[in-house]
């Protein structure tokens, strides 16, 4: 890329680039898409179906690379091949955490995969660690606040949907979700979008006739590698499967992962004296996210809906089994969530990971034993996902977990 970053992004904005983004958390991403589009780009959240994207991915990416990168590359290529896009004005955006997990290399793997067929399509990075300076989407503080608010709204909606869908007809839940998303869409770009308390109130109000009964179905938590955990395409619609099997699914919030990333930056400073220049910013961000999460928790009080656990409590739960120094991939967060869930009402857990995921040897499968030692009634099943594995194999293991529901 010979042009400067400024020139590139100026062109990106002016020429109405279409940016493809992966489907990870359908609800949260719906809102975030609108926020990013305020900058003038058009975002398309791709949501692949069927096996084909996986096969395309297998032929484009080293098969020993992780499953998320295989299916993401496959879905992007499949989407680009549809002919729907002016390839000279299309880009692909993925997030990059810059950690010690190989996921940080998705970007280069994508570039390699696109090299031959779509050399003109740039792969952009969404990161906060200063990687890929030339290809990172620029952010203002205001935009960042909107993004975080978007994550919070999305998390709140995901939480309400998860808690109502086992007990109410699908169309009623869908309608409530749609109304809330429409309401938020209308506020994009307006000052009211940041009036979180009011928006929370509206959302909860809309869901008030979908309040779950006191006597809940068995609660099953889904934790693990972030993409496989959330993306229904990647995890063969795990959440829907569990709901069909008579469970209520519990997901950690997306914000929790954001907080985990922020927390690690602070830890790096504390442990190794890193991030000297930015530490104040990280601390500010940490306090800010805690406060906006608190608002959501307050708003849910007395509504019959269960709020997300306070992040600080999750951190403390994790410390019982693992050091917070374990920060690659989802790191200590996975065992922390497992401890936090099984110490409370969520005794059943599916811990998902891409086949051969490196950090999850340690933080996933490696931590089941101590979590069970801490809470002997914990019912945990690890499930590997891979483009070549069969759904029956996974389903059968899930069934074993379901047979022992606590």
């Amino acid at each position, binding site marked *: 890329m010979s042009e400067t970053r400024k020139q590139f992004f100026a062109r990106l904005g002016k020429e109405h680039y279409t940016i493809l983004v992966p489907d990870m958390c359908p609800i949260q991403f719906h809102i975030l898409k609108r926020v990013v589009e305020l900058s003038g780009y058009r975002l398309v959240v791709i949501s692949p179906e069927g096996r084909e994207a996986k096969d395309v991915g297998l032929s484009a990416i080293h098969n020993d690379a992780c499953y998320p990168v295989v299916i993401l590359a496959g879905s992007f290529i499949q989407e680009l091949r549809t002919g729907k896009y002016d390839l000279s004005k299309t880009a692909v955006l993925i997030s990059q955490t810059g950690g010690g997990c190989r996921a940080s290399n998705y970007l280069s793997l994508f570039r390699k995969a696109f090299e031959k067929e779509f050399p003109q399509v740039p792969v952009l990075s969404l990161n906060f660690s200063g990687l890929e300076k030339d290809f990172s989407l620029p952010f203002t503080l205001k935009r960042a606040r909107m993004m975080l608010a978007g994550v919070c709204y999305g998390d709140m909606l995901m939480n309400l949907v998860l808690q109502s869908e086992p007990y109410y007809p699908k169309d009623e839940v869908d309608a409530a979700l749609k109304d809330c998303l429409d309401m938020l869409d209308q506020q994009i770009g307006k000052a009211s979008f940041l009036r979180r308390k009011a928006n929370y109130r509206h959302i909860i109000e809309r869901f008030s006739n979908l309040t779950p009964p006191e006597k809940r179905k068995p609660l099953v938590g889904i934790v693990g590698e972030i993409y496989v955990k959330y993306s229904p395409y990647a995890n063969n619609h795990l959440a829907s499967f569990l709901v069909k099997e008579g469970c209520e699914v519990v997901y950690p919030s997306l914000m929790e992962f954001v907080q985990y990333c922020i927390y690690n930056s602070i830890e790096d400073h504390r*442990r190794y004296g890193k991030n000297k220049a930015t530490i104040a910013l990280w601390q500010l961000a940490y306090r800010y996210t805690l406060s906006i999460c608190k608002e959501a928790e307050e708003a849910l009080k007395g509504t019959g809906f269960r709020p997300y656990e306070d992040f600080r409590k999750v951190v403390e739960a994790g410390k019982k089994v693992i050091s917070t120094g374990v920060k690659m991939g989802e790191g200590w967060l996975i065992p922390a969530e497992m401890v936090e869930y099984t110490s409370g009402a969520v005794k059943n857990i599916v811990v998902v990971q891409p086949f051969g995921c490196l950090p999850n040897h340690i933080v996933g499968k490696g931590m089941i034993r101590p979590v069970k030692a801490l809470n002997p009634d914990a019912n945990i099943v*690890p499930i590997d996902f891979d483009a070549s594995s069969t759904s029956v194999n996974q389903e*059968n293991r899930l069934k074993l977990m379901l047979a022992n529901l606590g």
Partner: protein
Amino acid sequence: MGEANLYLGIDLGSTTVKVTLLDEQGNLLFGKYMRHGSKARETVLLQLDELMKQQGDVNVYACMTGSSGLSLSKRAGIAFVQEVESSFAAIKTLYPDTDCAVELGGEDAKIIFVTGGVEERMNGQCAGGTGAFIDQMATLLSVDVSELSKMAERAEKAYPIASRCGVFAKSDIQSILNQGASKEDVARSIFYAVADQTIAGLAQGREIKGNVLFLGGPLHFLPSLRDAFRKRLNLDEEHAFAPEEAPLFVSIGAARAAKNLAKPALISEIRRKIAECSLADEALRGKPLFESEEEYDAFLKRHRDVSVKHRDLATYVGKAYLGVDEGSTTTKLVLLSEDNEILYDSYQPNEGLPLDNLLARLKEIHAQKNPGCEIVASAVTGYGEDLIKAAFGVDYGLVETLAHLKAASYFEPDVEFILDIGGQDIKCFRVKQGAIDSIMLNEACSSGCGSFLSSLATSLGYPLQEFVRLGYFGKAPVELGSRCTVFMNSSIKQAQREGAAIEDISAGLSRSIVKNALYKVIRVSKAEDLGKKIVVQGGTFLNDAVLRAFEQEIGFEVIRPSIAGLMGAFGAALYAKELGGKGGLLSLEELNQFTYASKHITCHGCTAHCALSLLTFPGGRKFLSGNKCGKPEGKKDTSGIDNLFAWKRERLSKRLPSPEKPIGKVGLPLCLAMYEQLPLWETFFHNLGFEVVVSPFSTRSMYRAGQRSIPSDTACYPAKLFHGHVDYLLNQNVDFIFYPSESYNVNENRGDNHFHCPVVAYYGELLKRNDPRLNDENFRDPFLMVDDVKPSVLTLLETLKGYPVTKVAVHDAYVAGYQAMMDYREETKKEGDHVAKSAKEKGKTILVLAGRPYHIDPEVSHGIDQLLATMNVAILTEDCLRFDKKIRPHVLNQWTYHARLFDAAAYCASHEGYELVQLVSFGCGVDAITTDEVRRILESAGHLYTQIKIDEIQNLGAVKIRLRSLLGALEERRGK
């Protein structure tokens, strides 16, 4: 509906159907066990008919179970219970004093702990294929499974076989067979491998003791398998046995569970539901191999043209040249005339007895040939090259790659790419200007794709040719994935359950094999990259379906010689002809007297304790195999000369003297990052006054000692060995074991960041929580950034709380330790300079055996360095090179060890006389990224790239071929 007092259990497993009818008291009124082939539903219906014939159409509570029962029950609207739960229900009523049950099925392995906290465990996907694995192994040895069990009873010994998964074990077995091991011993080794896999993978530290129940078909029908489990668990027949109901056990459990789950119904009603439900067809389908008969005919005609002339052996008079290709599963022979006509050829499975097989063929040639025909020269290639050469006095041996290139060039002088899919291996070579330019061989995971086709055909009850032919006109071939045969097998089972036609499975499998070769082995991104002139060969390509699938996948036509399965032998014969007569081959008379005896010995030449096989032939000729150096052959041991691996090992074996009055005893595990940081920590603790115990280099027995506490079987072998080191150190009564957790490695300023990989960084956290003997006191893994002294000292002071050390002392010891590590790094570089200089003087090839510091562990790299040293190669490591320029790789360069790899590749690319071989541990996710990049750096500078995947597999057979191919190709290049 009415009342019922009968209970029906239907267990639909991956390979068998079990139907049971119980009465109120639990008496068995009906019980049947049957293999279902690919017809699961039909078999169930058949059994229900029989049941009705016997018992009449009565009201029952019915419940299904089993992996195949899952989707069928859903569709038919019949109650379902997970199979482990079924077993559990049956155990509780039938054998209430059971402590633990081990159940092996066709695809799954399960352990149920009943007492001391109920726990039910199933294998992960990777270890899949237990019953199916035994089936495959039996096919490999051309016996049925019960014969396999009988053979094992007659065995004298067992070989260590990688037990991680079926594919891995198969690789090991294949080479053991080729070294002349007896089938009986191999049979026993197979059962031991299954037992080891189940115990290690599932028990995960929980002891299997008390009354143990063996469940499932394989354990019931195969006494040797039960024996293997008893031996490994130290249990006797009284406490560990298979109940007589074992095969039906799970269906009995399902019948027991039926009362709570189902409503009463007539058997005929249940039968109707099963018969009428629609089968799920969720499998993705591809396009057919051939759209029409015409298309097929045209295809056949095109390929028929590429052939070699044959000539009658009985009438030919003149010189003849013999080529032998002793492959992993087959023996191939070609006898050529002076005019390159084929006088005799043979392609036969060696059935695990390569010598007997070849002996018979040679005798046959003598019997058929004209007295005026003289075999003047002979050559052999393939896995069994050394063995055959020694046994039959064959004149020449040549590397497979060269043999194939010779053969392929005969058909297409301008050949650009050769792809060979044999039974066990997939080999590809790119050819530039008549010389091999790059070689790609499959790693363990892709092994056995070819022979999988035949073992699947056999297990489905079809001869191979017919099975493949069925696929030609499959309307919608099933997609079966391409990761490995274990995964494919599981996909096939799923497709069968969903009612896929055998035609579609056959075609789908052919396509999967091709995809595995293209996307996993060759790593092609665009078909054009292969070049336009492609020769495909190997026994597997004789199947038109595979050939067709390949042409479809790459989108253009290729050349497949009619003798595709004989190309290695053909090339060897051409080679023998080129080099001319030596006449070493045994005469008819000698052949008639040919016998051999085999003996097994353990070498005590060094700590590796290799298991050797010694074959003795008439005239005192001997053949030794299994050794990794020249020592047992009486040769001078040269494996340590010009070998930086050996130097490092020696250097790291030197210990500092113990202090007189130690203030404590610390254990340092020689694993992962410790391989580089040992000087740091040994010095540090020594200077503080500790007695330091360092665990020795890893061995297989250490691995076994720690195997029980491994929670994730797919982690890399170097990490899994760590468990054994912990065990060793605990037995040394150390106060605590020390292995720091380091997210960051030393910053060498060579990349974007300086991380460790997650496994190296945090494996200590895993160990501490998974070995029940460890706690925060006796296992200390502080989080450090080693090149930052101040925070490190503070953290270490905290770590050593309770010991009489001061901050100043910790600081000084740390600084001294850090210096010791830097000194060691510099010494390594100096020794590297020295080896390079010495190699240049001797004219040796300099090979950088690049990987990670811990790859020097003899159990991790299995003596690859020693093997290379005996091939007259000087060995350097990636960290001894003096990098002279900075490169920017095309990937995110943020791990210190990996940055060295890229730099080492760049160094070799720009320095005359350096070559690089990359060692990759199986399961190393980060190397999925580095390998492509290292390859790119080397190949863009015109160098050959060779990657060797290492794991538990001890056998160096395939590695040897790979290295010899590389050295052969280098030599050939230099010659040109």
